[in-house]
């Protein structure tokens, strides 16, 4: 996983609520067995509309997605995270996220930033007024800055550390393999096996 410390880029406002993972990457794209090539499927149904915000020239190259609440609800497909990253996004800002999407994001180094709904709207308005506006997301300081404005966000220390170090979760867990073995030796005898 690529480490995330701070990122500065342009943002794109997505003024929709309940952006479910079926919209982020429709199921037809999930048949691939590789981890690459999902950028083409990102919002593929919505992108057919020439007026859709991602199609507007002013927002080309933006790397921060600023969405309405309940972003990433629904399906557990991590392909949604891959599609956003491969399209070029490093950060998604919203007032609320689907739990699984949020978890998947932090495993891959896509930073989900929760800000109050009114702050998200203020940021969307600022970006709409000036699409070239530079937005900085500083994970070290847990703060989003744009123009003369800024807003703090919360993220737990452990996830922040892991993201900033770019650490592989599996490697971290395997350091505690002895604990896992000890636990396994004490499991209830009636628990089923699949064999």
């Amino acid at each position: 996983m690529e480490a995330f410390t701070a990122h500065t880029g342009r943002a794109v406002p997505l003024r929709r609520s309940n952006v479910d993972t079926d919209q982020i990457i429709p199921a037809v794209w999930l048949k691939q067995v590789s981890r690459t090539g999902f950028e083409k499927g990102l919002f593929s149904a919505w992108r057919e509309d020439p007026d859709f915000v991602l199609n507007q020239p002013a927002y080309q190259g933006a790397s921060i997605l600023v969405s309405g609440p309940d972003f990433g609800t629904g399906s557990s497909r991590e392909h949604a995270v891959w599609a956003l990253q491969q399209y070029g996004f490093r950060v998604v800002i919203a007032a609320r996220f689907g739990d699984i999407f949020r978890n998947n994001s932090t495993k891959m180094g896509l930073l989900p930033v929760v800000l109050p709904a009114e702050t998200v709207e203020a940021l969307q308005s600022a970006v709409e007024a000036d699409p070239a506006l530079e937005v900085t997301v500083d994970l070290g300081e847990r703060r989003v800055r744009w123009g003369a404005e800024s807003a703090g966000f919360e993220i737990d220390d452990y996830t922040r550390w892991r993201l900033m170090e770019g650490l592989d979760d599996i490697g971290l867990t395997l350091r505690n393999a002895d604990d896992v073995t000890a636990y396994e030796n004490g499991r209830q005898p009636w628990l089923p096996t699949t064999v």
Partner: protein
Amino acid sequence: MGRTLAEKVWEQHVVRRAEGEPDLLYIDLHLIHEVTSPQAFDGLRMAGRTVRRPDLTIATEDHNVPTLLGPITDPVSKTQVETLRKNCAEFGVRLHPMGDAGQGVVHIIGPQFGLTQPGMTIVCGDSHTSTHGAFGGIAFGIGTSEVEHVLATQTLPAYRPKTMAIEVSGELPPGVTAKDLILAIIAKIGTGGGQGYIVEYRGEAIRKLSMEGRMTICNMSIEAGARAGMIAPDETTFAYLQGRPHAPTGEQWDAAVEYWKSLVTDSDAVFDTVVEIDASTLTPFVTWGTNPGQGAPLGTAVPAPEETNDPAAARRALEYMGLTPGTPLREVEVDTVFVGSCTNGRLEDLRAAAEVLRGRSVVTRTLIVPGSMLVKLQAEQEGLHEVFKAAGAEWREAGCSMCLGMNPDTLAPGERSASTSNRNFEGRQGKGGRTHLVSPAVAAATAVTGKLTAPADLA
């Protein structure tokens, strides 16, 4: 202070707890399917890792499989299924492939084999893993990175979610089902209402539900945003489990039941949030919009956006759905009816649909898709398939089918379905398709009239 059911099950599975870190949680059962696992197995291979506990892992083919007999014709789907077969062979994971008597939708086969038991932790790369919480365990969906993590370590690092009680008092009126109840709950608390929570469904109406009804409820916890849903095990649970292939037997059964009986929320335990709902006031419920929280009683009309809690989203949804505010929901015309999925693809669901269709004829394209090959067999032993065929419905093979349209069962653009599945998202059942979520009984009645209909409306 007492503990909630969720806290008891969580604590039982903590492998390691350290200050400032998420708990390391042991996973008792890992379910695998073809869509979210290939990249996880690739990750293992690249790192030179193995599957730690293949004996706690089981795989099935469900999302891509055609429901008409014959091979997979879509080459990309075919590759994905073949990749699962290769991975399961290489890493020693038991697989129920297409054609196998044990094949079926991943959340149907776990319970039917008795692999899903009270007090367990169960994960799968699929958000509807919450289904298994109906037995009193903690079951939740994970992404592919976490699938890889569980394959490699049989654990997951996780923070314990907050706890929410949904207290359902009273009794469901005749003709009102578990599906209507969960749709009403989601409409009440919203698609984000459960975010960050494990929900425990409690109360008289829940206790009276069968295991299949309880699975329908827990299945759609994710549609309310919850990480997991659960129901305390009781005699209904034990009766369902006893005698299933992987259920304990003899002394182990007795020991297990004794432990399972302790899996209840203590009377002095405190939930972080409590939601109350009176089941006796409910009527058949349907969705009108493009998220599962946009629903209403069938007896009402398409709402005006201004009457809803998110007018902008409602306006957009109504435009997509091609609906006009004020139109009675009973006048909404439907092209296709789908009965199936991990929400409503079990035997009781098929019985409910058959009861309505017996001696009647359908006027819509009607797909009846059993959730597993075993459900199919049981339904055929009861003659349900003859009822469906006589009514003009299509009796298909097991799979996820039109719930998400990864196989050939899809809606065409602009087509409208009444579907017993779990998501009415834009394009969920096929690009441009319009979905109304309903119970199996309402689905069947709708197939008879071609408009959203409850069985009680039929002459």
